[in-house]
Every structure is written in C-alpha cells, then in structure tokens.
C-alpha cells in the first residue's frame, strides 16, 4: 500500500488504494468541506467589494479580486500542494504584519493628525461652511419644499409679512394665492405640488443641495421647515490659492498644510501634506525627547528584563513544584494558578492601581504600612513590576509545564544516580533543556513587555512625576512617554507618533535579533 497523502485520512486512502493507488482521492465530504470553506472565504472577500467600489479604491479592489481568484484556483486545483499550506499564513502575514508596518512608515512622513486629517478641498469646504453667517436683518423663512413642473423648489414665507416667494437656483420669484398653515408654512399653492414632510425628508439630499442666490448672499435650507439667507465671510480664491476674508488673505502653505496670513497666524482647519523626514528630525532634535531618552530607555530595559525574569522564575518554580511526582491535587492548583491569566488584564490593572492607594488600598490596609506606593519613584517601579509579575507568571507556568512534559524523567533520575543533588540536576539537566524550548518565548515576552503600554498607562500613567520635569515620569516606558508627547498634550499627531513608532520598532527589532541569535547558539550547543 502506498503512503497516504498528508491531507486524506489514511482510512479513506486505503479504501480507494486498489483502484488508483498513486493519486489523492476526492470524496464527497471532502469536496463539500472544501467548497464550504472556500465559499466563506470568497464571501468575506467579496463583502468588501461594494464599499470599495463606492469609495473608488480601484487598487484595493484589484487586490481583493486577485486574492479571491488565487485562493479559488489554488484550492480547487489538485496541484500546488505546498502552496496550499503556505498561502493562508502568507496572506495573514501580509495583511496583519507587513501592511501595518508599511502603513506606519507612510504615515510617518506626513503631518496626519488633528487639524490635518483630510484633503485641502475638505479644509476649504470646512472653512467656508464655518464662516457662513445669517445676513444681518434677513428673516428666518418658513420653508416648504414643493415641485413645480417636476423641479424641486422652495416655497419661502417671510414670518413677519407672510409674503410667499419661490426660491430656486435661479433666484427668488413672487408666488400668488398660496395657502398658509398654522405655523406659516405654505400648505398649498397654485401650480405647485407641496411635498409632505416624509416626501421632503426622503429628498433631504436634494434640498440640501439647493442654493438660492440673493443679493446679500444665498438662501439655504436649515432643516426641513426653515431656510435662512447666509453669506460666507471666508471664501477660497483659486487665482491666489488663498482664502479671502477677515485678517486675510490666508495663503495656502503646502509645506505645513495650513492657510497662513501675513501676520503668521493660521486657520485651524488644515490639510494633510507630505512633510518628508520632518517628524524623524523632530524626534532626533527635540530637547524634551533627547534629554530624557536615556533615562526612560534604561528603565524600559529594566522593566522588560525584570518582568521576563521574575515571571519566568516564579512560573517555572511553580511548574517544577507541580511537576513533582509526589504532588497531589495538581489539577486544582493548575486551575487556580491560571486564573490571573484568564481574567481581563485591563480590569486587573485598574484593580491593582486601587489596591496600591495610600489611604484606601488593600495593600496598606493588610500590611499596616502608610507607603504612598504609586507616589514615589522607587516604590512605584517596584509596584508595577509586582503587578506585571502577578499578571505574567501564569503564562510562564503554562509554557514551562508544557516543556517539562517533553523532558524524560529518566534524565533527571539518571543524574540522581550519578550522584547529582536536586539542585545540580535542575541546573545541569532540566534548566538547559527547558531553555532550548523556551528561549524564543522569553525573547518574545521581552519584546512584548518592552512595549507593555497597558501595564504602565493603567496603573501609574507613567508617574510619579518630578516637580520640575512634568513631561517624564519615573515609570514611563518609551511607548507611554511618546504617547504622551504625541497624543497627551493637545491634539492627536498621528504622523509624529508613527515616526516614534518606527524608532521603537527599530529598537525592539535590534534587541530581539540579538536575543534570537543567542538562542540559536544555545540550541546548537545542546543539540
């Protein structure tokens, strides 16, 4: 009998092996499952088509179609077996790892952020719209939407004179013989079909689009039942690429994405522009970042290393204790120990913060201390490490327990027979074998804790802060520190934040690369 293929269960392969021994067999169940899985994948991908068409993102649409076609072809064909295994992982890698990194890079060379979110055209629209003011002395008209010869028009009643006028894109025209309702709205007029509220609501978009030109400005609908004559005091002038208006002209500056007037003031509505490496230069030259970088970096390293070492030490100790053959009630202990890992870290961090409260916290109440744990640099650092230890050791316990199962007991027993005491057996046999399996996880855990934003932000928010350097706190990690610089003060500056992320990415990448390299050497030693 030939060896069954990887995909087909051996039994089925055996059943059909007599007829066509060399090829994989297609059973009905197999086809149905495959088609079902493919259908779901295709449906998910095609779900994205209408919005993409509406947004006219043709490149993205082409990508979606190409991915769907490749997936369908790949899995409906009998060939490309290795690709069948590689493609899903590759797609996820591209979508969730490579694309975000590239997107961060591309954001980092823009000024994207509050005040610079949209395009220049959107900024102009916003500036003009927010400068629209009711023409002084003009009435607030009662509005009825109506049709005249199929065309949508406004019937406007002056509330003071009860005079009715027709408003259309051609301007105002008098209307005779209109019937007014209780509120002054026109209910009927000869030659017009007055729309009901529901009909008008259904045509809200068209109503919003109607601008009735007048001498003083223009009449626009304000809701379904009112219209006002308004005039924009700020108007874009294409001839000078500027906004004409009060304190103007406000000249467009493509370098900063703002309209600037001769006095150097800017209009707050800006647009997104490419700023090249400005954000990176700012990270490198900003004295606030420079002077504090080393201190924050040192504590960041301490925090990440400390978290990995303490959680690993405790997790491993507990795992070893439970691994002992004479241990009873192992299952109960395991469940209890995994609890901190199973609870939402978000809530736990906030609870820990409150437990460290000086006057109301459980820690001081139980110990009788009066320490302001999160209010002093040393104790705050100790506290966040303790909290992170509590949150992190169950994970280490889990992975160590798993790795321990793979180490044959004979090895430690043999070490015992050779005269090694328990400590030596652990140090020379168990630990090295554990590290072979766990080193990559320790490196990953380091990288995670290096950027462990929640653990700091939700407990100390980076504090405590020294009285004269309030931009940097004693427990600030690079990520919380730069979050404060980019988002904490004033508006969100996504471009700047992205540039900082690129730097942090580089730091973590280098540290992790060094870590993995060492791991590999270790594996070679013990292979």
């Amino acid at each position, binding site marked *: 009998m030939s060896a069954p293929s990887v995909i087909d269960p051996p039994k089925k392969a055996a059943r059909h092996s007599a007829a066509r021994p060399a090829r994989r067999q297609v059973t009905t169940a197999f086809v149905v499952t495959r088609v079902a899985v493919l259908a779901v994948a295709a449906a998910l991908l095609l779900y994205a*088509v*209408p919005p993409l068409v509406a947004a006219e993102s043709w490149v993205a649409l082409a990508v979606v179609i190409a991915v769907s076609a490749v997936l369908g072809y790949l899995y409906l064909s009998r060939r490309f077996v290795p690709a069948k295994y590689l493609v899903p992982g590759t797609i996820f890698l591209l979508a969730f790892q490579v694309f975000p990194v590239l997107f961060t890079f591309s954001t980092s060379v823009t000024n994207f952020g509050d005040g610079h979110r949209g395009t220049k055209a959107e900024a102009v629209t916003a500036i003009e719209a927010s400068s629209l003011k009711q023409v002084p002395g003009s009435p607030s008209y009662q509005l009825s939407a109506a049709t005249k010869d199929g065309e949508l028009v406004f019937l406007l009643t002056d509330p003071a004179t009860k005079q009715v006028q027709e408003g259309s894109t051609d301007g105002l025209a008098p209307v005779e013989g209109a019937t007014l309702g209780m509120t002054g709205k026109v209910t009927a007029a000869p030659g017009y079909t007055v729309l009901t509220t529901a009909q008008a609501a*259904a045509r809200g978009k068209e109503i919003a689009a109607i601008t009735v030109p007048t001498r003083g400005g223009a009449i626009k609908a304000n809701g379904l039942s009112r219209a006002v004559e308004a005039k924009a005091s700020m108007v874009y002038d294409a001839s000078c690429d500027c906004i004409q208006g009060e304190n103007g002209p406000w000249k467009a500056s493509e370098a900063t994405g703002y309209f600037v007037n001769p006095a150097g003031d800017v209009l707050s509505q800006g647009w997104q522009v490419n700023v090249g490496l400005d954000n990176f230069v700012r990270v490198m030259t900003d004295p606030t970042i420079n002077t504090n970088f080393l201190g924050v970096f040192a504590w960041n390293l301490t925090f990440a290393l400390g978290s990995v070492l303490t959680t690993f030490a405790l997790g491993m100790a507990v795992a070893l204790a439970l691994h002992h053959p004479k241990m009873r009630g192992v299952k109960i202990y395991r469940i209890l120990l995994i609890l901190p890992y199973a609870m939402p870290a978000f809530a736990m961090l906030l609870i820990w913060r409150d437990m460290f409260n000086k006057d109301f916290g459980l820690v001081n109440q139980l110990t009788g201390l009066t320490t302001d744990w999160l209010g002093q640099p040393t104790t705050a650092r100790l506290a966040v490490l303790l909290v992170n230890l509590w949150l992190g050791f169950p994970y280490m316990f889990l992975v160590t327990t798993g790795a321990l199962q793979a180490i044959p007991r004979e090895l430690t027993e043999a070490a015992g027979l050779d005269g090694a005491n328990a400590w030596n057996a652990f140090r020379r046999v168990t630990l090295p074998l554990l590290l072979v399996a766990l080193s990559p996880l320790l490196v990953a855990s380091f990288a995670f804790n290096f950027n462990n934003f929640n653990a700091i932000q939700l407990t100390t928010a980076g504090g405590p802060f020294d*009285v004269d350097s309030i931009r940097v706190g004693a427990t600030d990690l690079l990520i919380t520190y730069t979050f404060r610089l980019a988002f904490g*003060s004033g508006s969100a500056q996504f471009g700047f934040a992205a540039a900082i992320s690129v730097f942090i990415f580089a730091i973590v990448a280098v540290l992790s690369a060094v870590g993995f390299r060492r791991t590999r050497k270790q594996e070679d030693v013990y292979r």
Partner: protein
Amino acid sequence: MRIRALATLAGLALAAAACGNSAEAPAAAPTSAAPAPSSAAPAAGGKLVIWSEGAKRTAALKPFAEQFGAENGVTVEIKEITENPQQTFVTASQQGSGPDVMVGAHDWIGNMVQNGAVEPVNLTDEQKAGFNPVAVKAVTFNGQVYGAPYAVENLALIRNTDLVADAPATFDEVAAKGLALKKDGKVKEALCLQVAQVGDAYHAYPLFSSAGGSLFGATATGDPDPKQVQIGTGDSVKAWGKLGELGKKGVLKTSITPENSIPTFAKGDCAFLVSGPWAMNDVRKSGLKYDISAIPAFEGGKPATPFVGVQAFFVAAKGQNKTLAQEFVTNYVTNTDVAKALYDADPRPPALTAAMDLVKGNDPDLAKFLDAGKDGLPMPAIPEMSAIWEPFGIAEASVIKGGDAAKAAGAAQKAVEKSLAK
C-alpha cells in the same frame, strides 16, 4: 478537472457576489442615492444616524429619536459610542462612515471644527433666548453657534448637614471644619475632592481660580487666548502655592481618586464633597442628609469659578443626511417637551430655561447646582485647551505631594507652551 474547477469557482464567485450585493445594498444605497430618490417609497424616506455617549443617555434618546422618525417618515438609528467618542466621531466622519447627529460635550467643539467634522447650527434669536445664557455661550465658538445645548453641568460643594449644618462662607472654613471633624474622629477624610496620582484639573480649577490662578489670557472679544498661556505665571504661581498648602494640611490628597471620592462621602466618611449632579444618585441612595451650595472662595480671594460643561447636539458636516440632521437639532431637540422628557429619562439639569422651570419643583437640587454654576466659566472649547489638562494635573499632584510651587508652575507653563508651539 481543471475546467470543472474553474466553472465551480465562477459559480461560487457569482453566488457570493450576489449574496454580498444583497447584503450590502441598503448600506451602499445612501452613498449613491442622490440621483434616484424619486423611486423610493415615501415611508422609507431617509435615514438619520445619531451617535451618543453612555448607555443611559442612548437609551433616553431612543424614544425621541424614534418619534422624530415617525413624524417625518424616516428611519432613525441610534448608536452608543463607548470608547473615546470624540476621536471616534472625528475619525469616522473623515472616512465617511460617521453619523448625521453627534451628542457630546461642548468642549469638543474646537477640535471638531479644526477637523471639519461639525457645521454651525442656525438657531433663531427666540430659540437662543430660551436657553440658559451660559449654555449658549458655551456652544458658541469663533462667533458661531455649533450645537443645540440640552444640559448644563458644573461642580458644587455638597456637605453632610448632620456634620456641618450651615454652608461655610469661605473655603478656609471648609478646610478647617473638615480637619477638625477628622481630628475628632467623626470623619476619615477632611475633604472629598478627587486628585489621584495624575491630578484632576477639572476638580481643582475652582480652587485654583479663587487663589488667583488662570489658564489663558483673554482676547479682545473675551474668549480665552491661546497665545497667552498663564498657567504658570504671575498670580498663578501663588495659586499653586495655595494648592500646595492644602496638600500639606492633608485637605487635598492624591489618594482621593475618581473611584473613591463619591463613595467615601456617601458612606459618611467625609463631611464635604466637591462634585457634580452625577454624584447625586449615590448620595441620595445613601440616605444621609445633605445640602448643596456653591464652592466658596478663599478668604480675600477671587470667586471660585467652576467649569461649566454643556451637553449638546451637533450636526455632522460629513453626514449623509444633513437636512434631517438640521431639522432634528434645530427644530426638534430645542423643544421644551423633548427637553423635559430627556430630563425624565436621564436627569441632567436642562439647558432650556422653560424645561428647567418645569422640573425645578420636583428636584430642588438642580436649582442649587444651577445657582452654584451661575458665575462659572464655560469650559474653554479652543483646541488648545486639551494641552492644559495633563500638565495641570501633574503639576497639581506634585504640589499637593509637597513639591515646590514655583518649580511646578514653571514646568507646567513650559510644557503647555511647548505643546502649543507647532
């Protein structure tokens, strides 16, 4: 085999595309509906999407939104935004997936305007006259009204009348009474005013202002001027010193946090609470006797002005159905009956004077809060205000812990100026 595979794929793709289209049709319709509304049945006219913060308010808005929908023959969808509503709204608006109407705090206006996310709201003079003047002032930004206010909130001093019968005339008296009661063991804390490790500018501001501190200078029109940061200059330094003094006495403490301040008062462990109308639910439930008064000034100091926060309805600039949104915001929620009903569902002091008068009789606390805030400062809506909160808070926490006031003031000043120098 390959041909069969391709045929299956094609069939599959068609089937999936059909599913996708039918599922997407209603969502995609508004974007492409402009040229063909005449074909739509009148009942399925437009759709108004409203976003609001907080489960309670969302639930309170629902019946009114639905009634509006029924009256105008449109469907109304109301959605609760829990996490960071302002940023969510601005980001979604930019992507074209935002709502038509947003409900939120007036101090978002500056940032929403600079991002082109909201449009001015055209209230008639009669409508404006119907509101509490502070509320209209709060939603006015750069001379334009950007929202229809519906609730006004500010801080006041709530005291346990079993422990302190009469309202103290000065804040020095509050501090002295609180400390004396603590010394006698009648209470555990002298004052429940939340500070926390990161400080709390909103709750500290009345004391800061009474001690002479200010955040910004004023422009010619009386609006806060972001070019004159005053958080750490002149009289503000003295104000930081005053906060430090209260810290030294143990009246202000970093261990009083947003989580424990109201419960501690409700338990009777505090004679005084500085908080807003949102605290009253817990306070009433506790059953203790209380009274509400304005936060008193320091002896010989300036008035202790609380920030006034106004909840308002905004018209999204990039909404799909602006006409309906304007109708809802300018002509519907400004109605006294709607304002009264909104109050019944979610008791926040109404911004409409007529609605306030209607509910005042049943809820005397409201009038007291309103009274405590009548000289309040509408929270500055300029985008630059967001540069104040964190440095102010951190400086506050450090002087309360005993840090040097002049140093803290200087550091706060520098931090704010730096983040505003763009």
